Each structure stands twice: as structure tokens, then as C-alpha cells.
């Protein structure tokens, strides 16, 4: 395995990272998930990426159990906050101070760790002042609950604004997590150059375009909702942990 610095930070990551989106806690059984994590470690992968929303928090729990006996300093553990989890109440999503503070503690408990190496804002929250979000992240970093801060699918302007605040607050904002592949190159003209200038590295998701680039779909076959205007994290139906009745109730009240 080769290692790269995450942006211009001192943190090194395995250039191939293991992510458990749409696998752990949902499509892949617990024992198979553990076998995959074990194999990832055996192959030299040290960087593990998850999110509280994956399988409605179950993915973090699976990863926490799978990594429980691994020396903490030998791996880099990344998670994210923003999408609704848990009871899906009116404050159970976004990047408000309240939701961020509650979410980090939930993630740490599920991951069975005192800190994550990287805490990422899973999307930009249009309803929360960026200052509030970045100050909450700063408190988390200063409390030792996360060492670095990142974002996912933010625009170049949003990244630039957050970086200015991070600098004022003396916290390391070091990463962006966009979808990127041979087929989906939308970061190349704005996000990536801005991040290069600011010392922010790209941790890219879906490099194989959800399997399309593996060649497993033959011409004429319809692949999964590629390019569909959908929640990039997968449709809600992929999160079986949420009872459908609760989902319906939440919807009625919003």
C-alpha cells in the first residue's frame, strides 16, 4: 500500500481507503463485513470511512465491532454528520451546534473510540450559519474528539468560506469528499483547484461509479440509478433499520 498526506496536513492516509456505505449494517451480513475489514487490514488499508447515516447508524456500529481489537494508532477512522439519523426529529439533521455535538458522541460510542481522525460535514447545511457549524467543529477538535475536519460535496465557494473560518478558529480543515471517477469529473475545474490552493485533499467516493466502470453491466442492461437526481447516499429504502411507520410519521410532520 502507498500512503499520501491528506491535503497539506501531516496526516497520512492509505491511498486506497475502505468505506462501508451501502454494505455494513444493510446489504452485507455482520460476519462478511468483519471478514472484509480484516482483509482490508491485511492488504494494508489503514483508512476507514463511514458516516452516521449509513444504515441509519448501524454501519458505524459494525465498523466499531470489526475494528475493536485493532490498535487505534494504526488506523485512521473517518465519519460524517448531516443526514437525518435516529428519531429524525426536527433537530436530528443538519449542521447545527446541537446536532453536531449530539452526533459526535453517538458516533464515538458506536465506533468504540475516544476520537475520530476526521469528522466530515456530509453536505452543506443551508439553514445553519457557517460560523455556528465551524465553531461547533472547533470545540470538537479542542475537546480531542476529532483531530481533523472535512466536508463532503461542498462547492468551491462553500469550501473557501469554511476554510477562512477554520483558519480563524485554528482548526485543521483538510479534506473534501466528492464523487469522482472517469465518468464523473465535476470537481476538476472548481472544487479541486480551490482545494489545492487551500491545502485540502480529496477523498473520492465511487471511483468505480457504483460498479459501472467494473464492466459488470453490459450494454443494454440498466445499471443502478447512475446520474439520477437522487440522494447520492442511496435511497431511503436502503436503510432498513428505520421502521417504515416512523418514516411515514416523520414525513407528515415536516
Amino acid at each position, binding site marked *: 500500500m502507498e500512503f499520501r498526506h491528506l491535503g497539506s496536513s501531516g496526516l497520512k492516509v492509505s491511498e486506497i481507503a*475502505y468505506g462501508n456505505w451501502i454494505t455494513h449494517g444493510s446489504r452485507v451480513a455482520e460476519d462478511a463485513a468483519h*471478514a472484509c475489514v480484516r482483509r482490508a487490514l491485511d492488504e494494508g488499508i489503514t483508512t476507514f470511512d463511514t458516516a452516521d447515516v449509513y444504515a441509519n447508524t448501524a454501519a458505524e456500529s459494525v465498523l466499531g465491532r470489526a475494528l475493536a481489537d485493532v490498535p487505534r494508532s494504526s488506523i485512521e477512522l473517518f465519519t460524517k454528520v448531516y443526514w437525518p439519523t435516529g428519531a429524525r426529529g426536527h433537530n436530528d439533521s443538519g449542521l447545527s451546534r446541537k446536532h453536531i455535538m449530539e452526533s459526535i458522541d453517538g458516533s464515538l460510542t458506536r465506533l468504540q473510540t475516544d476520537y475520530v481522525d476526521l469528522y466530515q460535514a456530509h453536505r452543506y447545511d443551508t439553514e445553519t450559519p457557517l460560523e455556528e457549524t465551524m465553531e461547533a467543529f472547533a470545540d470538537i477538535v479542542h475537546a480531542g474528539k476529532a483531530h481533523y475536519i472535512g466536508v463532503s460535496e461542498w462547492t468551491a465557494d462553500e469550501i473557501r468560506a469554511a476554510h477562512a473560518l477554520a483558519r480563524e478558529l485554528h482548526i485543521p480543515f483538510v479534506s473534501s469528499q466528492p464523487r469522482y471517477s472517469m*465518468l464523473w469529473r465535476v470537481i476538476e475545474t472548481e472544487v479541486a483547484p480551490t482545494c*489545492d490552493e487551500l491545502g485540502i485533499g480529496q477523498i*473520492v467516493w465511487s471511483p468505480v461509479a457504483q460498479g459501472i466502470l467494473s464492466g459488470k453491466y453490459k450494454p443494454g442492461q440498466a445499471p443502478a440509478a*447512475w446520474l439520477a437526481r437522487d440522494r447520492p447516499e442511496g435511497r431511503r429504502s436502503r436503510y432498513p433499520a428505520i421502521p417504515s411507520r416512523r418514516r411515514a410519521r416523520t414525513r407528515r410532520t415536516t
Partner: protein
Amino acid sequence: MLERVAQLEPIAAQTGLTMAQLAIAWVLQNPSVSAAIIGASRPEQLTENVKAAGVKLDADTMSAIDTALGEVVVTDPALTAQLAPKERPS
């Protein structure tokens, strides 16, 4: 689009990589990229796909990929904003 993707097959074969390995190696050629995230439902997929680490693709291979995919490549930078939620999800 899948017809275009199928044209990557001989390019992958020529480089001695599977198509998935070629795709992962491709994103790692970009110096802005610190890491490529891969998932797996079986351990064998990891063993296969980590072989993309450290692979260097030459300029001919990179341009052959662009030629093969042609107009199906999505480049519009406005899509980052367009695909983002306009209000906080619940």
C-alpha cells in the same frame, strides 16, 4: 453510456488491470486526490482492488480512456451545487 464503458475493456487488458483496477488507478493519477474509497461485500474484491495502489498510468493510456468515453464524461462544475439539498433534510 455502457457502450462507451465497454470500450475501456481493451485498455484495461493492455495495462494488465481489471476494469475496476483501472478505474481506481485513474482517480489516483490526479495529484489532488489523497485517497480513493472502495467498498466490498466480499474479501476477494478488496484483494483485487487494492492492486490499483501505486499504479502509474502513462499518457497514452490516459488519453485512450478519454477517447473511449468521449461525451459521456460529466464535467459540469455546477452539478456539485445542483445535487445538494436545498433545505435541511428530515
